[in-house]
């Protein structure tokens, strides 16, 4: 069985995975990181979006083997000590979710967009999130949330000495860790 070394949300893991195991299943079933959901079989919906070396990818369409040597950030890294990341706060405050199924992917795709373009227009936000589907909200409040988070994040970057917490994706201390106990390591999940 292939052997991978991968960093997920700042923690490095050394694991055996089945060749056919999708990254999203590795995250959910082997590491217990269920913050990243699966919404489709066709790479269309974007619910599973995570960052790989800082770039958005659909984790249902990357094999866990292909993540070997890479740095993965999931939605679970966003809130530090219960303090919400500006993108999370903005989704909460502008009512940018209803069932919430698309929300982790939406937020990760939005962070990818804002890294490239810290002050996007509504049109650019819609384009940046074109790979993420929401069956509930109609997108209007999602666009608002991203716009508001962008403003907060720009203000924080402009005034680094201020009290507000950093808007970077938090990097936890890297430490070696055994796979989560619920993971019957490498067992087939099918």
């Amino acid at each position: 069985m292939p052997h991978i070394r991968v960093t997920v949300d700042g923690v490095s893991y050394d694991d055996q995975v089945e060749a056919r195991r999708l990254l999203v299943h590795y995250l959910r079933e082997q590491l217990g990181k269920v913050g990243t959901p699966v919404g489709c079989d066709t790479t269309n919906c974007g619910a599973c979006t995570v960052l790989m070396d800082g770039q958005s990818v659909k984790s249902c369409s990357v094999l866990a083997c292909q993540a070997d040597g890479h740095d993965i950030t999931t939605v679970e890294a966003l809130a530090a000590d219960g303090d919400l990341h500006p993108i999370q706060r903005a989704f909460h405050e502008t009512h940018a979710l209803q069932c919430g199924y698309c929300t982790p992917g939406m937020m990760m795709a939005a962070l990818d967009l804002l890294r490239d373009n810290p002050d996007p227009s509504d049109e650019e936000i819609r384009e940046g999130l074109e790979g993420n589907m929401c069956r509930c909200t109609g997108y209007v409040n999602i666009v608002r949330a991203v716009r508001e988070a962008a403003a907060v994040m720009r203000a924080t970057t402009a005034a680094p000495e201020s009290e507000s917490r950093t808007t970077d994706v938090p990097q936890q201390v890297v430490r070696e860790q055994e796979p989560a106990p619920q993971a019957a390591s490498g067992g087939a999940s099918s």
Partner: protein
Amino acid sequence: MIPAQFDYVRPGDVAEAVRVLAESEEPKVMAGGQSLTPLLRFRLAYPDVVVDLGGLTELRGVADEGEWLRIGAMTTHDEVIHDPLVAAHCPLLAQATHTVADPAVRHRGTLGGSLAHADPAGDLPAVALALDAEFLVSGEDGDRAVPASEFFQDYLTTVLDIGDVLTAVRFPKLTGWSFHYKKFSQTAQAWAIVGVAAAVRRDDGSVAEARVGLTNMGSTPIRARQVEEACRGVPARTDALREAAQSADAGTDPPNDLSAQADYRRHLARVLTGRALAAAAGL
């Protein structure tokens, strides 16, 4: 769904990839995996070995080769869009690539994967065909170069053998030409119902030469040769180019599917070809 079991190999160079492919019974090359992973999940593909080209840095990047631009097969869509050499010498490819899928798919999906997959609705095959690109292939019997006019054979079928690796694609620089890719689709992140890749070389007030590649008007990308002939020497005016575009659907065999009927696609091909030519001519 969960893919069926397969072995996974990540070769260190092209020679090793070709060797592993030759030694396996039902191997499958994986590039960005953006088309292949869904096929594996639906169990429409069930290879015994997946040969992942992800470690082959030699297949990644853009090189200036004088008259040509050489783009490694593993160069991602996102890299193509942001590459300064592509912007300077092959802007049609950058423009068409920008319409492919969505940002996350473009971070993983590759130029070579799109061309090797040869989906008739894919945007890049028509561009490669219109620009007379050349495909560099490594296989058990050595290396060969295949012109775009021979590369695409049928629906999802190219000249690539099961043991072949597409290593790079060479695009001629076409100095003095201007370009436009026109894609018609209904929603964001959607495949083209019809797409048109147009290239025009102007001679002051008239069109000296034009090239047109069509997306999703048959089982392969198609050159609209009649339109190209009709464009020769016409005044560089919108009405003249619209007139020349009237034969855009000649010799095509567009599909009937959920997005559109064949006759509507024929209509779109004529209208969009006129618009793409006009935009390419700077009108």
